[in-house]
């Protein structure tokens, strides 16, 4: 229960008087609070800094150190204060948690120090409020990753029992793991460079032939270049095959970008080998040699920055798309305008709109080759507008791309999306947990028979037993919920039991008596189905969701949500109910006596279905057509 709300518990209990005239059953006895001296200031001395607060404030969270009797261990008799030898700065946030119900994470604080303090005071970090939770999780993840990186660096020694294949793959991915890998790394890098330089030099003209025409070196020293090319391709092929062999998932490897680049780099050579020197295919052959330049992309395995650049472009796809789109629009508009403006002039180079595209592009990117210039006045005016707008259109998306690149570069390719998803899921499940916490506490104490003991007597032992397990606040809250149960003559049950009850009855395959409920299959999980049309406040209806798979992250208990189907309530199945309840571990045998005791007075209450209790005579009871109104005590009978 939130802190501030605990202060309103007296109000909620007082308002319960509104139920009393409506109720048909007697109410349970209220828990008494023995110690009237609640309004006490206590002093918490944390390393010399004194904090003072009301005792009530600390009692709001009885499962923490300060809220429970554990703080008595730190009580200093002489000075009559509680002394803690901990960090007073962090203690400020912790004490504020008691006061306001919200736990904040101060940004300047070290994450591990904060975690330690929270662990000492018994507060789970998951209740950090939303405003600080993401920051907390970010820092925690950073810290964990840093620790993991350190660990990985230390564990680069060869692990035993790694297959040859795995060793090879590791060598390929981390070249600095072994000398062989490093040698291989440099050799391939060298050959990539050689191959690229060869491609370039091949086209440089060197020397004259007698027929007075510059020929490129490639044609002059054909064999030399061919040998070089063959050597490079052989190295690349061997490398590709080795990688393919060593890859843990070959299919995935083949689909990866780097392997596609590898393939494209070596394929032209093989195609060239296969094809003969026909005249008609030589054109295609020449085109293929262009693809040899893709070998330069193989350098991206060697350079982190290149990989980041590629990743940036991929992630800025939308900005790039926008840039392209706006440029295209502008080009078409201006080309059309220029074409029609220059139509009149003679010997105009603007022969068609597509021809004007070239002019527009050159002008907008402020290149201005000068091969096409407008001659008419209108053309010149529009041409100047074109060049001015070109600067604007191009300058707009560029800063976005640049900032993206720098962000990614600094974060070193951390996957942001994955993190955001986890935080979102954790947040939702946290809200759910806090909601279900109080209701499950009530059900838990019911199962332990403590609430029933309230009905019997207000005797001293029962009270003490009560105090041992629940705080006063909790017992009062449970009493309030118990009163509500009595007013409506229905009981709160756990989701599991609700589901189990259904399962048991469904096995027996009795027809359902409540068709209205059976039509509500597959409900989204709001607890109050009849009011689903009204907008529900998120607080009151969350804990029954079936997204429970993320709860491993959190320590609280979780309630499973099964499918909702009608719970059978026919009279003949009442025996089944007691069977189902046998699966509960209910300690109290006092439930039987409870059933008997609470029967007599209310005139309209019908028989309890506990077999031991005789159905009481109810002469003036109006006949209830629906036997489902009976309260069946869940007890091991």
């Amino acid at each position, binding site marked *: 229960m939130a802190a501030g709300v605990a202060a309103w518990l007296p109000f909620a209990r007082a308002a319960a008087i509104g139920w009393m005239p409506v109720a048909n059953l007697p109410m349970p006895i209220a828990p008494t609070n023995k110690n009237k001296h609640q309004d006490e200031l206590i002093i918490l001395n944390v390393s010399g800094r004194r904090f003072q607060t009301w005792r009530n404030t600390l009692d709001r969270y009885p499962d923490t150190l300060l809220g429970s009797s554990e703080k008595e261990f730190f009580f200093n008799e002489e000075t009559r204060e509680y002394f803690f030898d901990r960090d007073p700065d962090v203690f400020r946030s912790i004490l504020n948690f008691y006061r306001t119900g919200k736990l904040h994470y101060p940004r300047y604080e070290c994450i591990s120090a904060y975690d330690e303090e929270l662990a000492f005071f018994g507060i789970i970090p998951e209740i950090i409020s939303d405003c600080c939770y993401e920051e907390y999780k970010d820092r925690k993840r950073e810290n964990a990753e840093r620790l993991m990186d350190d660990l990985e660096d230390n564990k680069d020694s060869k692990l035993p029992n790694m297959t040859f294949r795995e060793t090879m793959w590791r060598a390929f991915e981390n070249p600095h793991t072994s000398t062989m890998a490093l040698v291989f790394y440099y050799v391939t890098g060298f050959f990539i460079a050689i191959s690229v330089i060869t491609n370039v030099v091949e086209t440089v003209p060197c020397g004259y032939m007698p027929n007075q025409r510059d020929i490129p070196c490639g044609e002059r020293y054909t064999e030399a270049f061919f040998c070089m090319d063959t050597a490079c391709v052989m190295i690349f092929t061997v490398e590709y095959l080795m990688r393919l062999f060593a890859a843990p998932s070959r299919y995935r490897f083949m689909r990866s970008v780097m392997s596609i680049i590898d393939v494209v780099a070596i394929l032209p050579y093989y195609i060239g080998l296969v094809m003969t020197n026909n005249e008609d295919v030589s054109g295609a052959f020449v085109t293929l040699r262009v693809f040899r330049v893709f070998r330069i992309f193989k350098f991206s395995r060697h350079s982190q920055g290149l990989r980041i650049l590629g990743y940036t472009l991929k992630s800025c796809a939308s900005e790039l798309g926008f840039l392209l789109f706006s440029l295209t629009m502008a080009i078409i508009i201006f080309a059309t305008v220029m074409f029609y403006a220059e139509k009149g002039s003679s010997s105009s180079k603007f022969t068609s709109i597509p021809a004007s595209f070239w002019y527009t592009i050159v002008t907008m990117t402020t290149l201005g080759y000068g091969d096409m210039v407008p001659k008419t006045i209108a053309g010149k005016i529009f041409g100047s507008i074109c060049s001015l707008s070109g600067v604007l259109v191009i300058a707009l998306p560029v800063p976005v791309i640049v900032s993206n690149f720098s962000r990614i570069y600094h974060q070193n390719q951390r996957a942001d999306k994955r993190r955001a998803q986890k935080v979102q899921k954790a947040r939702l499940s946290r809200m759910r947990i806090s909601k279900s916490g109080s209701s499950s506490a009530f059900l838990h104490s019911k199962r332990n028979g403590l609430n029933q003991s309230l009905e019997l007597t207000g005797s001293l032992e029962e009270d003490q037993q009560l105090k041992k397990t629940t705080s006063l606040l909790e017992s009062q809250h449970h009493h309030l919920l118990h009163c509500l149960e009595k007013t409506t003559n229905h009981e709160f049950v756990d989701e599991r039991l609700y589901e189990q009850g259904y399962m048991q009855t469904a096995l027996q395959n009795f027809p359902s008596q409540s068709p209205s409920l059976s039509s509500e299959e597959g409900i989204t999980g709001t607890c109050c189905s009849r009011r689903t049309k009204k907008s529900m*406040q998120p607080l009151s209806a969350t*804990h029954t969701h079936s997204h429970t798979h993320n709860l491993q992250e959190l320590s609280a208990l979780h309630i499973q949500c099964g499918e909702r189907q009608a719970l059978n309530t026919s009279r003949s199945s009442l025996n089944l109910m007691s069977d189902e309840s046998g699966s509960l571990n209910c300690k109290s045998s006092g439930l039987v006596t409870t059933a008997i005791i609470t029967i007599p007075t209310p005139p309209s209450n019908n028989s309890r279905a506990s077999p031991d209790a005789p159905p009481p005579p109810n002469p003036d009871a109006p006949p209830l057509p629906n036997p489902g109104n009976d309260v069946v005590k869940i007890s091991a009978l």
Partner: protein
Amino acid sequence: MSVPVKRTQWDEDLSQFRKDHGLSKKVLLNCCLVRRIISWASPKQKDSVEDELELSAARHRPEALEQLEAQTRFSRKELQILYRGFKNECPSGVVNEDTFKEIYSQFFPQGDASTYAHFLFDAFDTDHNGSVSFEDFVMGLSILLRGTVQEKLNWAFNLYDINKDGYITKEEMLDIIKSIYDMMGKCTYPTLKEETPRQHVEIFFQKMDKNRDGVVTIDEFIDCCQNDENIMKSMQLFENVI
């Protein structure tokens, strides 16, 4: 003219533009049709900023402690404790209905307490100004916790009588009882059915409505409750809450 954010602003802009340019309304609508469609299609922003401003401006300070002490049956210390809790949750000094519902719903996590909280709010907000100040709060609590049985029954009657006309009709009772059942939520044993609240209302009316005229007046109510031992006992239940 930039695209306006709020619709009211759009209206003002429009009238301003019209005044400036003397264009006819039809022309304007036609030319700004696209913009209008866009501003309609975009989600309307609630005027929550203004709401918050209003509420924070209404920083209510309660009457002096002595006056409250005289008007209610609480001691000074008890009033102090109550005020501290109240102010903690509502720093502005007044509770509006949404906060009220939220607070009350925290006690009933399995069900929907908002309807019953709405009725409670109406019962506490005696001057019907839409907010419960500390005085209203404390007066209500004084009746509930320290009042005579007569006063408590009066208060309960006031709660049930939604339109405050002096009679409890079956519809009003049905609303109240439905709201109480709503607080239980869905996961109950036995399962809640549609006719359960109605039956409960029938039982109630059979008990309370002596002259069978379909409504329960305050006298019938008080008479009947005073003759019912259970109700009398349960009225004393929360004596020692504060």
